[in-house]
């Protein structure tokens, strides 16, 4: 049984974050989107530390959208910690970045990223991609723990 769908969005650019949230909300795939602006906060949220100690404040996400260039802790480092944690490994992580660098892509795949998306410059295409990706991961793909506890 599916419960509320939760997305954790890790994005330092506020404009991008707002846009992504709007598109996902319009596509009606996610009920709850948590936005954090740096890698440190993302890890605090996921590992329920600091201001996220309370489980109610940090529901387990069904999908993590992760930017690569982040303040404090880098996106790849966040990815690494997620995929090394037995608790969190099952949550799909989608890298959402402007970097087309092959090194970045290779590094992300090396850390078992679930998929790597390059943000299109074109506004419409960007919208389409976000909506498609939300739909793909939250409607078609299965993750553990989507059953109501």
């Amino acid at each position: 049984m599916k419960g509320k769908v939760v997305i954790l969005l890790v994005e330092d650019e506020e404009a991008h974050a707002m846009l992504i949230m709007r598109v996902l909300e319009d596509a009606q795939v996610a009920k709850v989107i948590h936005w954090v602006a740096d890698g440190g906060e993302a890890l605090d949220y996921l590992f329920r530390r600091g201001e996220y100690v309370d489980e109610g404040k940090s529901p387990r996400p069904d999908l993590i959208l992760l930017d690569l260039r982040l303040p404090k802790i880098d996106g790849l480092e966040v990815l690494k910690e997620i995929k090394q944690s037995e608790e969190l490994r099952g949550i799909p992580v989608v890298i959402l970045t402007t970097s087309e660098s092959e090194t970045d892509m290779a590094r992300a795949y090396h850390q078992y990223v679930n998929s790597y998306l390059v943000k299109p410059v074109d506004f419409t295409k960007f919208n389409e991609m976000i909506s498609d990706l939300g739909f793909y991961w939250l409607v078609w793909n299965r993750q553990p723990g989507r059953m109501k506890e």
Partner: protein
Amino acid sequence: MEEETKKRPVKILVCDDDPAFRKLVQTYLRSADMGFVLKEAGQKEEIQDALDKGGIDLVLMDILMPDKSGIEWLDEIVEKRIAPVVMLTGFGSEEIAVQSIREGAIDYIPKDHLTKDRLLSTIKITLETWKRKRAEEEKRRLMEELEETNQKLERSNRELQDFAYIASHDLREPMRKISAFGQLLQESLKGKLDEDEQENLAFMIDGANRMQQMIDALLTYSRVTTKAKPAKRVDLKEAIEDLKNVELAALLEETEGTIRIQKPLPAVQADPSQVHQLLQNVIANGLKFHRDGIPPEIAVRGRQEKDNQVRVEVEDNGVGIEEANYEKIFGMFQRLYSREGYKGSGIGLAVCKKIVERHGGTIGVNSTLGKGSMFWFTMPTITNDELRITN
């Protein structure tokens, strides 16, 4: 015991190689005038003979017997559960006396302390103890038997569930192929078949699809027990809000239905996903079976009952159910209406019943035809400890 002695004389076997001592015992017992029947045995063969013939109610056994010791006899009598044994001990044989008790003698009398009163009271106590012991043994045996039967039942129940799960799980795959390739055939033959042939193919595909739905339903049903999770505190209001937003959203929109929660609902202690499923099925049932042109209105109430149960009522304004069908609707694949009129697996309420009963509750319905139905069920309430933790 006295009553028993009146009914049937108590037969006592005295085993002692000393005839004078046997005589003494006989004298004591006779003078008691309680209808004792005495059987005397001094030799190994005599004892064996008396025991083999049976009907002995009590054995008085000298510890020092020729050929075969009193302890050996005791072991045999205890082993075969022939009768209670009272050991007769000589001077200085305290140790053996204690050993004999360990090995199953009910009591012992030192020969040099033998008086009529001592003998009679020992016999009385021994017979009572023996009777009680036998009763306890019988009870234990029955309990063991019951336990064994229970285990057998549980085992075969589990096997049956596993079978249902495996059967439905593995049957799904070939059914999926029949339906999928049937549909592919239907697409590729479009325009090439006459009306009759088209219909035949459509019936085939429809049958396969229905079979698939039934298999899925069976799987859901068997999962209630095979995939059960531990009980937790479940907030019913929260569960219903979730259902409104997710699982029942489409149905609510389609039927223009509403769900109203009257007053705060008590929490229950149950498998959370099963509570979800239970509420979903009961509410969906109310939404689906609405009267023509009248949007369904569902009202949910709940109250704390005595004996640690919560009673939940889900009332609708739908088509209603005839009293004759109150039981039937909770059965597997029971439908009161045609498949065309009302879609569904025909298993929703059977699953509800299984979930409720698995939690030790009951489920039922009261209804007025053409006015609406009120489904109710009971579930265990949360214990005070739980309350303290969650609050």
